[in-house]
């Protein structure tokens, strides 16, 4: 695939990811065709792409069309078909059948699915289709978040995977990792384990408390439950249900959706996108209210009473003294510190134990958590606290010791390959 005048057809172009993905491709000088159910919806896709790019001129490289009229005639000329339809396997398969019947034999088909089985989507298609099919998981919003997962299935031609990785890196400025075709891949598997665990803990400890003790100071741009509201409770449920149903690992229980969220979703409570019903938080005029998970009612959000180790961590992060922040974290006493450490050490343990199973290396896990989630890379936590200390804590909390941590504890190696200039942004004051 030459690096000029590449043609991309986007299916589901008016969706949450399809429209900004159009902006990302057009911004990298691809000729883009955005397809939707009808021309009106395709026009919505264009305006979404223009908002994402903050430029009407992004439309100079975008053509619009509908599935009925334009799919076959545009797909036959496309170098890349990027599928961004709803997360519905049978719907996707119906479209892939149509694409299979008209695509050029050397074109690449990528699904933007955030966790469905890549192999399952390709099942029943032609040999050529299967060899040229893979997952390209962008994170939302893709024009801002550059972390990207590329997911080949067993029959994907390795040359196709390589070409897509090169293209995403050099043309689209993405930070790419290649993952195995396992539920939710690496980023969402690790990220939603932590997010759902905090949702479970909210039932006992309260929403505001959890977002305070496991807040941005522990290495994330946004507190975890506020993140679930931003993602949407329905999307959250789809991801954790998929992992819960299709994986058997040491932390499977962390993926069980709390009953209060199940009830909330049934009542239309989906987070930020349903401002009236709310999520963990709800706006009431200018005031912010917080959910009581047990009763389902809301009360005014009050600033949690300061906890010494949290405040110290925030101050150290504020001044760029990250080692000191994590020393405080490792050594703080009390039930609150214990709870926060259990979750953060759980993150480190779970993330680094995915090496070999889903991720190719610890550096890949670091990359996707840092550039996909804006979370502190797990190996940074190991280096800041010290591998020997981490080993003790992981054992203390009866978590699974990742082999890379065991090795680092015995040979004294640092695990993170970058510097403070790379991870500093993830440690919030």
């Amino acid at each position, binding site marked *: 695939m030459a690096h000029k005048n590449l043609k991309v057809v986007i299916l589901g172009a008016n969706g949450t990811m399809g429209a900004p993905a159009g902006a990302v491709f057009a*911004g990298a000088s691809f000729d883009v065709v955005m397809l939707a159910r009808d021309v009106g919806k395709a026009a919505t896709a264009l305006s979404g792409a223009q908002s994402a790019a903050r*430029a*009407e001129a992004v439309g100079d490289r975008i053509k619009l069309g509908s599935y009925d009229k334009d799919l076959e005639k545009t797909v036959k000329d496309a170098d890349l078909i990027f599928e961004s339809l709803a997360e519905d396997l049978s719907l996707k398969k119906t479209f892939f059948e149509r694409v299979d019947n008209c695509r050029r034999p050397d074109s690449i088909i990528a699904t933007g699915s955030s966790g469905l089985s890549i192999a399952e989507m390709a099942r029943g298609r032609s040999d050529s289709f299967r060899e040229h099919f893979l997952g390209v998981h962008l994170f939302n919003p893709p024009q801002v978040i*550059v972390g990207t997962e590329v997911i080949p299935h067993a029959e994907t031609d390795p040359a196709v995977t390589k070409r897509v990785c090169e293209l995403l890196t050099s043309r689209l400025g993405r930070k790419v990792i290649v993952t195995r075709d396992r539920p939710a891949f690496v980023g969402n598997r690790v990220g939603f384990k932590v997010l759902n665990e905090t949702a479970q803990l909210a039932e006992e400890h309260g929403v505001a408390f959890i977002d305070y003790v496991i807040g941005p100071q522990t290495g994330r741009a946004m507190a975890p439950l506020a993140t679930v509201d931003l993602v949407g409770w329905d999307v959250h449920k789809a991801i954790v249900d998929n992992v819960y149903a299709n994986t058997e690992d040491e932390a499977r229980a962390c993926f069980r959706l709390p009953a209060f969220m199940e009830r909330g979703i049934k009542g239309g409570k989906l987070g930020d996108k349903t401002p009236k019903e709310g999520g963990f938080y709800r706006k009431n005029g200018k005031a912010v209210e917080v959910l009581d998970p047990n009763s389902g009612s809301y009360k005014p959000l009050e600033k949690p009473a300061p906890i010494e180790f949290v405040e110290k961590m925030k101050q150290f992060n*504020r*001044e760029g003294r990250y080692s000191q922040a994590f020393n405080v974290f490792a050594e703080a006493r009390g039930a609150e510190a214990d709870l926060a450490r259990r979750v953060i050490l759980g993150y480190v343990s779970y993330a680094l134990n995915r090496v070999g199973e889903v991720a190719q290396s610890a550096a890949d896990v670091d990359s996707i958590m840092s550039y996909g989630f804006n979370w502190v890379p797990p190996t940074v936590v190991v280096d800041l606290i010290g591998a020997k200390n981490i080993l003790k804590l992981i054992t203390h909390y009866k978590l699974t010791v990742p082999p890379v941590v065991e090795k680092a504890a015995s040979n004294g190696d640092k695990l993170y390959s970058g510097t403070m200039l790379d991870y500093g942004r993830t440690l919030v004051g």
Partner: protein
Amino acid sequence: MAKSAPVYILGGAQTDFARNWTKEGKHFVGPMREAVLGALEATKIEPKEVQTAHVGNFAAELYAHQGHIGAFFLEVDPAFYGIPTSRHEAACASGSIAILAASAEIEAGRYDLACVVGMEQMKTVDSTTGGDYLGTAAWYEKEAKGIEFPFPKLFGRLGDEYDKRYGLKDEHLAHISAVNYSNAKRNPLAQTRNWFMSESHAQTESKFNMVIGGRIKVSDCSQVTDGSAAIFLASEKYATEWAKRRSLKLADIPRILGWGHHTAPLEFDVKVAESRDNQYVLPHTRQTIVDAFKRAGVSGIEKISAIETHDCFTTSEYMAIDHFGITKPGESWKAVEEGVIEMGGKLPINPSGGLIGAGHPVGCTGVRQMLDLHKQVTGAAGEYQVEGAKITAMLNIGGSGTTSCVFVVGK
């Protein structure tokens, strides 16, 4: 001009200019520590070896309600306790003034190893308030008070002055913008590396590309940026020992080959009136370039492989093109049309993306420019490397062409 003792540039580091320190809950000392610690790591210099530190910063008093910025250098490492520090301010040229002060100390033989830091935190306030703060780089009472976004208007008038004297087409300014954004896509630390830009967007006034003042649209402007950069400057004595440690030859280490520094009257109208009969619109800026080339022993612009210039607005880069002597006065458009200034062109300008693409943390910019020249002449600029860059130059401007600083960097 008497020949002075050489000043070597050992390398350094910068923060990612896409960051927002306010959203990160950071005091500026945090990212400043990251830049200095990153520079120590990149150069393998021990903190105890550093003898003096100079910090370039424009307006921390306004943006962060904090003065005495030089003293914050000591917060990086206890080994710095006791060393002399100072803070330098000349608006957007603050970073270069810090470099000049540090290099003067080395030339005078006072110290052998200096750290120069540039730092500005700007995203603490909304754009209107920030625009007002930047107005203090002009004569505030006369040129900025009560005016929304005074600087785009002042640099719009620089374009108007070109238009009046020589003619100026906005399409050439749009092209300059598009080139800077395009270059920034290759720079992994550039603020706009993932932003959309095209020449047609830069040419068109729209809701996403509003006019800010006069002929200046959003796409003509540099960015509001949080950023810090740090570099190490050394005497021949220290550089010789440092080179030995790293199995390098002294001749492999870049030097400041020449410098220029002039100040024009603060008010834009006074500048223009003074230059009325001059072929250069900003003659003091031209003289700064001439001085730097002369001190460097550079016979002309054809000896320069790459330039990092002060494109606070597209009009200032347009001005730099003829003032550097790339074209005759008033003919900058020719270099724009012929692709001279683009990557792969005869003389690439702002391979980093410049202030428009890479970002413009005001008091940091001069230090960032010198760090980029160091990268270019050591072949360490990665995707934005100018093939075979040997002798390079930078122009850093404070105010509406008020303070001009030029450095020539090479081996």
